[in-house]
């Protein structure tokens, strides 16, 4: 896709480490994962993002070998995993509950996987201590898990998985059980850790901020299907479906009819908007078809007078609601009666003592044709 070069971050590796083809998982009549094709590249920090019940954890557990696919194949480093049980796969997992063995010391927890592989005790303990230092738990070896905080337990789980030098590290909602401050700190640490060990990380999360801030690429899942796989910026700026646009960040979704679509310009008329709008877009939609304008609230400019630039899409409306969030304020503007309000986010650059606009003010909203996308589905 051409847009990837424009906004995407440079991919870490080009060779695939995980290749998933036609993967499905059914539980009775319930479809958890539905015909997923996905390639994860060597050395990247990959995120599976989606609402709860979208199948992302099932997908992760199939990679680990803890669930068996109903159909489809998984190849890890070129090797078919169909007949490989969980304990022989070159992957390790950090469980959501951490699953730290409560009856073992921290050192024995971390050394467990090595001892199982027949590494001599001394050697296993030495490497366990190294792994503990890597996750900043040096010297914690003799402690027992019930003497650790939740964050420390997670680090034990991380060290326990990393000490085995897996080809892929799987993390199931790694930050969900931590408090907000620690969560933000752990994001950086996980990214730094991944860069220093160079192992491919696959993380499952329902938190878009987490995925956007950590991952080099994200697969957005819904109802067992992958909706879109892209780097964070591409996902945000060029969502391919309404679901992705809505799930990542905040968005105005305005239904309309495509009037014309040529020369990289889509012209859309919508009942909610007084005038047809024009959006620059490579992939055209057939004229006459239904389209949805996905417009990010922070890309819309709000002003009392119409802007001079005739090239901008401009509509007029009335301020109906104002939500003050500290760093930003959200203005909800009514353009047409009986149609959804348009959200506009304005950064509060000055201290808000007197708002530039207040309830009931007539305002003009404008945005450049390069802002927003028109979606077919």
């Amino acid at each position, binding site marked *: 896709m051409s847009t990837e070069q424009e906004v995407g971050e440079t991919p870490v590796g080009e060779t695939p480490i995980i290749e998933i083809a036609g993967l499905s998982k059914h539980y009775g009549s319930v479809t958890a994962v539905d015909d997923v094709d996905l390639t994860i590249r060597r050395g990247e920090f990959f995120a599976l993002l989606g609402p709860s019940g979208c199948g992302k954890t099932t997908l992760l557990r199939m990679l*680990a*070998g*803890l669930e068996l696919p109903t159909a489809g194949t998984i190849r890890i480093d070129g090797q078919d995993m169909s007949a490989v*049980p*969980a*304990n*022989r796969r070159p*992957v*390790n*997992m950090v*469980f*959501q*509950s951490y*699953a730290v*063995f*409560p*009856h073992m010391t921290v050192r024995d927890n971390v050394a*467990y*996987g090595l001892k*199982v*592989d027949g590494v001599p005790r001394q050697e296993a303990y030495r490497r366990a201590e190294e792994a503990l230092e890597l996750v900043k738990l040096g010297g914690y070896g003799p402690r*027992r898990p*019930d003497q650790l905080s939740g964050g420390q337990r997670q680090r034990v*789980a991380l060290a*326990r*998985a990393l000490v*085995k030098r897996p080809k892929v590290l799987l993390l199931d909602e790694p930050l969900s059980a931590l408090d907000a401050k620690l969560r933000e700190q752990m994001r950086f640490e996980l990214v730094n850790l991944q860069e220093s060990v160079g192992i491919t990380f696959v993380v499952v999360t329902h938190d878009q901020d987490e995925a956007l801030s950590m991952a080099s690429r994200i697969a957005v899942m819904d109802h067992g299907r992958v909706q879109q796989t892209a780097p964070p910026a591409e996902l945000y700026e060029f969502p391919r479906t309404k679901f992705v646009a809505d799930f990542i960040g905040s968005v105005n979704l305005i239904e309309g009819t495509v009037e014309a679509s040529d020369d990289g310009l889509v012209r859309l008329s919508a009942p909610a908007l007084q005038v047809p709008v024009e959006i620059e877009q490579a992939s055209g939609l057939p004229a006459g078809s239904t389209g949805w304008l996905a417009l990010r609230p922070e890309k819309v400019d709000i002003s009392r007078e119409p802007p001079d630039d005739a090239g901008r899409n401009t509509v007029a409306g009335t301020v109906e609601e104002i939500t003050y969030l500290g760093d930003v304020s959200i203005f909800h503007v009514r353009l047409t009666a009986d149609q959804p309000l348009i959200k506009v986010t304005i950064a509060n650059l000055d201290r808000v003592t007197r708002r530039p606009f207040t309830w009931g003010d007539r305002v003009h909203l404008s945005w450049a044709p390069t802002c927003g996308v028109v979606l077919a589905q």
Partner: protein
Amino acid sequence: MESWRRNPLVFWVTGLPPTAWLLLFFLVPLALVWVLSFAELRGVVEMEVTGTFANYVRALDPLYLQIFGKSFVFAGLTTLVSLVFGFPVALAIVFAPRRWRAVLLLLVILPFWTNLLIRTYALIAVLRTRGFVNFTLEWFWEKANAVLSLLGLGSFQLLGERFEPLELLYNNTAVVIGLVYVHLPFMVLPLYASLEKLDRSLIEAALDLGASQFRAFATVVVPLALPGIISGAILVFIPALGSFLTPDLLGGTDSQMIANVIERQFKSANDWPFGSALSFLLMYLTFGALALRALYTRRTAGQGRA
């Protein structure tokens, strides 16, 4: 129950009857037996409490010590077999679909709904020379012989001249079979309780780290089920040690346990002082076993804090 101080009347009304019950029907008889164990026989039924230790000295006679020993072996074997059989059962119930668990647990405790005596007689019908096990074996023996005749090998009598039934009843094996049958639920239930609390992801983590199914079981499931194993072992071992009906009905002449000896002292031998002494000796041994267990738990708990 912190509020009982503020409501002493409720406390006494609800607390007094059970206390009185325990005092009257448990502690007082127990004290009587204890006192009797220091008595001497005077004539056929009269006894005199003289404070003698003769009954205890007699109880330490090799003849009785051997029976004590045999009781411990029976109870120990019963505990071991119950554990080996009970663990897979408990594990299977825990891993069964949720809606099946209640039914399976019910099946485990179902034997309790029938009287022990009737269940033991039923077991006799199963194990005796002309019982269901031997009937089944004989049926197979006949079918096998018929097949051999068809093959023209009938005259060689490869399976013996006629069917020899297995002697399954009235021996030590029958006693252990019976004791396991009676006590298995007491092992399964505490095992189930502790396995049910086990976090599944711990087993998955062990597998994920490369452990085989067996290694995950031995290094994760068993250590974490240890409280259940200990509770189950105590719940099986102590009643099995004092069993008297099972060895009485299923055992042979040499498979009597200490409770059978005690019973005989109180009934046919009419030597209450000696029976009392044996009873208390058994109780002291049981307390000893419990004390060992308490010592063990304190040590492991201490390790936890170290």
